[in-house]
């Protein structure tokens, strides 16, 4: 594809002769169409920026010190300014409010969060030992955690090595005074990596199954179709939760497996239909005539002709899996608690919001919404570029 693009202007160089013998390939045309799509290019740039951020963070060049407590507990964002006397500007607003909704909230919020908080308490000190405030008062009552934090927020300035810590951070700090921006960057590493890797697993499985099923037909096709209908008759979320229940150990690999092993069905259906269509075409018969093996026909000859479907599916699934990872990690079924992800940030932010600390919620939400919006728009542009016939359907 690169050669044909390069060849085109060089042949025409200097002369008025337009080379009709070289017609641009699918990918060249698609890339041209994509480049002409302004929304597509902007979203591609945003997605690329996120990927770069993820790579830099994984390489340890940025956000390496995300787990350091650089600010005071709940350090507010710099544009709000430090709160005098304590690092908790909104705590007085939330704590001494004896109104009915407040007590109702506090008594009832206890139950659904108990286990999550217990988990947080159990594993957090191992990852980043919080100075005094976070670990004291470890009772079973999950409310104690919140209350201890309110108290700690007021008393910490005197207690811990707080004099070295900053009163404000660019976009605020979390419960332990860790920089929210660094955390968001570090969290993107987990969330994007999990999303993309599980999309690759799911697409690889779906493509393999779909290729075999569509190419061979007959009883093989029946068998895979049966397998497909089995997976398809269990609602996707239920399947994910069931697998999560069974795989006890948590980890990035586990969650990639969960999402990948359950998410292949849509790809399978599409790829199978493509292979059914392509296996009867002349070029496959020609490949047969020159003695190409089945595997060679399937993956060397047919696969390039269906690869645009694969690419679009990869993009769609990556978006879905990024969102799924956030939910799974939020529930505590995803990555371990010492690994930061946007889901675990939202989990912490849920309690912080009651105290009026909104910045971690906003940071994780904005990061995720930006990436997912850009990724979805890019997927649409990619699909339009690769399959212009669809444009009339979806577009205006």
């Amino acid at each position: 594809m690169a050669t044909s693009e390069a060849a085109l202007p060089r042949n025409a160089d200097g002369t008025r002769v337009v080379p009709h013998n070289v017609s641009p390939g699918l990918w060249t045309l698609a890339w041209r169409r994509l480049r002409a799509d302004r929304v597509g290019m902007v979203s591609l740039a945003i997605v690329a920026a996120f990927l770069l951020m993820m790579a830099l963070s994984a390489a340890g060049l940025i956000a390496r010190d995300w787990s350091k407590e650089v600010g005071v507990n709940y350090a507010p964002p710099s544009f709000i300014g430090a709160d005098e006397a304590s690092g908790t500007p909104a705590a007085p607003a939330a704590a001494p409010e004896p109104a009915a909704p407040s007590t109702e909230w506090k008594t009832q919020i206890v139950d659904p969060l108990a286990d999550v908080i217990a988990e947080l308490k159990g594993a957090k000190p191992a990852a980043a030992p919080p100075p005094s405030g976070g670990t004291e008062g470890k009772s079973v009552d999950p409310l104690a955690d919140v209350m201890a934090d309110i108290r700690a927020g007021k008393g910490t300035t005197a207690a811990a090595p707080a004099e070295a810590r900053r009163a404000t951070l660019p976009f605020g700090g979390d419960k332990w005074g860790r920089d929210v921006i660094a955390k968001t960057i570090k969290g993107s590493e987990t969330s994007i990596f999990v999303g993309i890797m599980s999309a690759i697993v799911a697409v690889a499985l779906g493509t393999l199954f779909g290729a075999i099923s569509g190419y061979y037909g007959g009883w093989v096709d029946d068998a895979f179709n049966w397998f497909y209908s089995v997976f398809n008759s269990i609602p996707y979320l239920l399947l994910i939760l069931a697998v999560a229940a069974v795989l006890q150990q948590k980890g990035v690999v586990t969650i990639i497996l969960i999402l990948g092993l359950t998410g292949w069905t849509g790809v399978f259906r599409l790829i199978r239909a493509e292979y059914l269509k392509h296996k009867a075409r002349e070029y496959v018969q020609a490949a047969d005539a020159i003695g190409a093996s089945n595997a060679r026909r399937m993956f060397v000859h047919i696969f390039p002709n269906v690869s645009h479907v694969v690419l679009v599916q990869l993009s769609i699934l990556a978006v879905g899996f990024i969102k799924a990872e956030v939910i799974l990690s939020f529930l505590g079924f995803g990555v371990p608690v010492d690994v930061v992800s946007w889901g675990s940030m939202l989990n912490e932010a849920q309690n912080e919001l009651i105290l009026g600390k909104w910045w971690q919620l906003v940071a994780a939400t904005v990061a995720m919404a930006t990436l997912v919006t850009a990724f979805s728009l890019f997927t649409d542009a990619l699909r339009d570029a690769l399959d212009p016939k669809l444009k009339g359907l979806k577009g205006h």
Partner: protein
Amino acid sequence: MTAYILRRLWQMVPTMLGVVILVFFLFNWVGGDPAYVLAGKISNQEQIDNIRRQLGVDQPYWVQLWIFIKQIVTGDFGASWSTNERIGSIILTRLPPSLTVLVPLTILDLLVSVGLALAVAYVRGSLTDRAVMIVCTVGLSISILVYIIVFQYVFAYKLGWFPVQGWGDSFWENLVRYSSLPILIGLTVSIAPSLRLYRTFVLDEINQDYVRTARAKGLSENRIMWIHVLRNASIPIITNVMASLPGLLIGAFLIERFFSIPGIGREVILAVERSDFPVIKAITVYVAVATMVFNLLADLMYKAVDPRVQLR
């Protein structure tokens, strides 16, 4: 018609068998020995052996599979491992709260998103259309978690318009008092994808020849959109709604969890947290059955909507 339904039911048998084997494989084979999960950390070998005998996991796999199939057919899955409640009664008591939220949610979602889809598709390409689509795309990319956290905080905690969470005994109190905010959140989350999808279905129809004919006959635009176009677009819409219904039962688990609604979704989460395998097994199998039955119902409804459809 009867022959068709019977044949479809017959075709479900192999799929159902596959679901049973998949669930069995997951929980009895991949899941490892449940006795260790149950007995916890403080246990001796004797206790573990006892538990294994009670659960029947000391039997060979084919006996266990047979027990599981018997459980499904008789509907008697035994008791929950963690609360000892009968699983039949768990499902029967958790279903009504789920439906109290989901039925109004589905109906409202359908009405609002179909209405909006018709309106937006009618002015396709306009600024309104594009603005609505952009709002949908952005709205879709915010996690449902954020909607729940923020709505619960703002509308229930700060403004006090709704109870923060809870569930009562009377149906009307539950529906009006406790379900309003969950339904509102569910609508916010579900309208964007439905609207986007239904809009494409309507767009597929809106340029067809019969629409031009109807217009040439002098029919009012309202009649064209609501009767002619909607009726033709309703086939894929029905498929979508019917296919998503059983999944919604589980899909609402986040809402049920945050609002302490004692429904099926919350039960699944609790069961996953407690490694309560029988509960998950039973719910998975029944939801799979429901999914297949709803797919059949969807096909039967095509026939009602579109007389050209041949049920084969």
